[in-house]
């Protein structure tokens, strides 16, 4: 039963990704001016140093050009993508996969760090608020988080940048590391990377913190009213154990899914932050490709972002049963 369910679930995820790829293909294939044709023509008149790359690009663009049988075209396109060929970047003429590969680690770095920080702080504070429900500290924090959460990220980011970066000059105003350090595994470089990441991470953390805290607060209050908590109190279980094993664990479980899914979504969620702090991640890249009509890059990023979301949801689904004994998958 379980293995069958597993196969079905993974297959579903795979199909979702395939559909995404097909949609991205269709957008190109059926857009009025056929950008692929233009690109292909440009390509033929440009001098290329690497003929192998040229061939790859030609193969790739061909599948996007409305000619011949569209089904065959689409299949060929999928074939290319699955082999990691997303074509060359229109402007720089570097393989799109390569560009994305350089940008992605930066995004993963700031996004996962900020998610982790906001999650850990958020659930701690949220549990505290839940326990203190109805008190002044709870209502103050609730109000504070509600306000912070409603500030758009580009405003909070810009504010942080303006005050801490430009006015007080505590942090650099952009980039991932300073131009003066040697890139590699050396202390000055690592220091510089960390230093540059503080503002973007702080902005993202701030944006996520309220959500986790309020969510955890609500779950905690709900869990505190459950019979098993009352019964644990009546057994004389220490309040520390009740807080962790009874209230904490049960309030946290539903958040696990949100966290894993959030990781998937956050790849695309850092566009504004990366833009504001000129951070060289995938979000910045997306912004750049859109403003420059950089089709191949745009499509590559699009596919990567959706795939991340699908994988996030899939992981959340598959691993939830491992951490929650109540969920037995497939039956």
């Amino acid at each position: 039963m379980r293995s069958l369910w597993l196969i079905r679930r993974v297959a579903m995820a795979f199909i979702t990704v395939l559909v995404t790829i097909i949609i991205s293909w269709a957008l190109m294939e059926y857009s009025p001016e056929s950008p692929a044709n233009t690109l292909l023509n440009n390509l033929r008149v440009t001098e290329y140093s690497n003929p192998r790359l040229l061939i790859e690009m030609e193969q790739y663009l061909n599948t996007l050009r409305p000619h011949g049988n569209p089904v065959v075209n689409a299949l060929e396109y999928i074939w290319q993508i699955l082999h990691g060929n997303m074509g060359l970047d229109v402007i720089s003429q570097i393989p799109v996969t390569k560009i994305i590969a350089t940008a992605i680690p930066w995004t993963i770095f700031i996004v996962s760090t900020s998610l982790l920080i906001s999650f850990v702080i958020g659930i701690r504070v949220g549990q505290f608020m839940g326990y203190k429900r109805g008190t002044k500290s709870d209502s103050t924090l609730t109000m504070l988080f509600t306000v912070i959460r409603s500030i758009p990220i580009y405003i909070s980011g810009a504010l942080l940048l303006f005050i801490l970066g430009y006015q007080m000059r505590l942090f650099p105003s952009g980039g991932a590391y300073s131009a003066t350090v040697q890139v590699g595994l050396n202390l000055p470089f690592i220091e510089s990377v960390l230093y540059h990441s503080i503002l973007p991470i702080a902005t993202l953390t701030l944006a996520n913190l309220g959500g986790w805290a309020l969510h955890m607060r609500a779950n905690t209050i709900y869990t505190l009213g459950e019979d098993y908590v009352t019964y644990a109190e009546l057994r004389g279980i220490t309040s520390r154990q009740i807080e962790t094993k009874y209230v904490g664990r049960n309030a946290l479980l539903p958040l696990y899914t949100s966290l894993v899914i959030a990781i998937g979504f956050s790849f695309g969620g850092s566009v504004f932050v990366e833009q504001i702090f000129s951070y060289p991640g995938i979000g910045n890249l997306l912004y750049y490709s859109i403003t420059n009509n950089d089709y191949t890059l745009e499509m590559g990023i699009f596919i990567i972002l959706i795939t991340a979301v699908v994988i996030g949801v899939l992981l959340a689904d598959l691993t939830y049963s491992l951490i929650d004994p109540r969920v037995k998958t497939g039956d």
Partner: protein
Amino acid sequence: MSEINTALSVEDLSVVYRTQGVDIAALKDITFNVNDGEIFGIIGESGSGKSTLAKAILRNIKPPGFITGEPRIFCYGRNIISMSQREFREKILWQLISYVPQSSLNSLNGTMRIIDHFYDTATSHGISKEKIREKALELLKMVRLEPEKVAVMYPHQLSGGMRQRVLIALSLLLNPKLVIMDEAVSALDVATQKHILDIIKDLNKSMGITVIFITHDIAIAAYLTHTIMVLYAGEIMEIGKTERIIKSPYHPYSVSLMSSVPSIRGSLEGVRVVKEGYPSRVGCPFNTRCEYTSDICFKNHPELYEINSDYVRCFNYATNKPKGS
């Protein structure tokens, strides 16, 4: 005040639930004694305050519920209501008084194995897992569960009846002298019911454990208990020896309760319909359903009168002296 053979004495206990600024009384001036070594039944219809009483004794009334006045509750001579919460948790809960909750379906933590509930209870009272394991398995076996198998299961893998039995086993873990059981067998089917009741009887007889048994099932109270206290609308209507209450109840409400239970062996002639209705707020709470009323029942509130060391709250017994005077 509390003699040595008194397991529990409760005096002047009142509880209200405060909803939208209005206090609704759930328990009014409850005063009673439970003798050491007896099975003390509390019966009453839904909403009569049975569970609230259990929670008040266990100091677990939470908002919107509040204890009002100044009740005194002694358990084996110890004033359990004035001691610190910490002392109560460490020394009283589960070591002196334990509890079987009413809702067996959601009383166990779904993220923990059955045995972990036993371990938690032990370690919270300074007893190590290793020391308690054997005892836990023994108790599971006693309630007719396969100990090794059930120990490692999660609550959702057990049926409602099996979970109820786990709760009964768990209540005995630290050898309490008094166990409060709130509808402990209501969720079980007939055969298991009888088996569990026989276990409780046996525990009471052979180990001298005192039991407060809350139930709405009169046949079960008759089978199991030595003394019965009848609650109606948060008040004590009658307290007396089980045998007497079943055969010749004093209070009109007790009379109607007893006559509303058919038997599978005895005669059915005495079975009668009881008038339906809500508790009254003025006069006697039972005056809306009572068949023995006189004018005073609608004006004044009856005291708890003493007859042959039993108690009854009804004006028809007003020639007897009120309790405590």
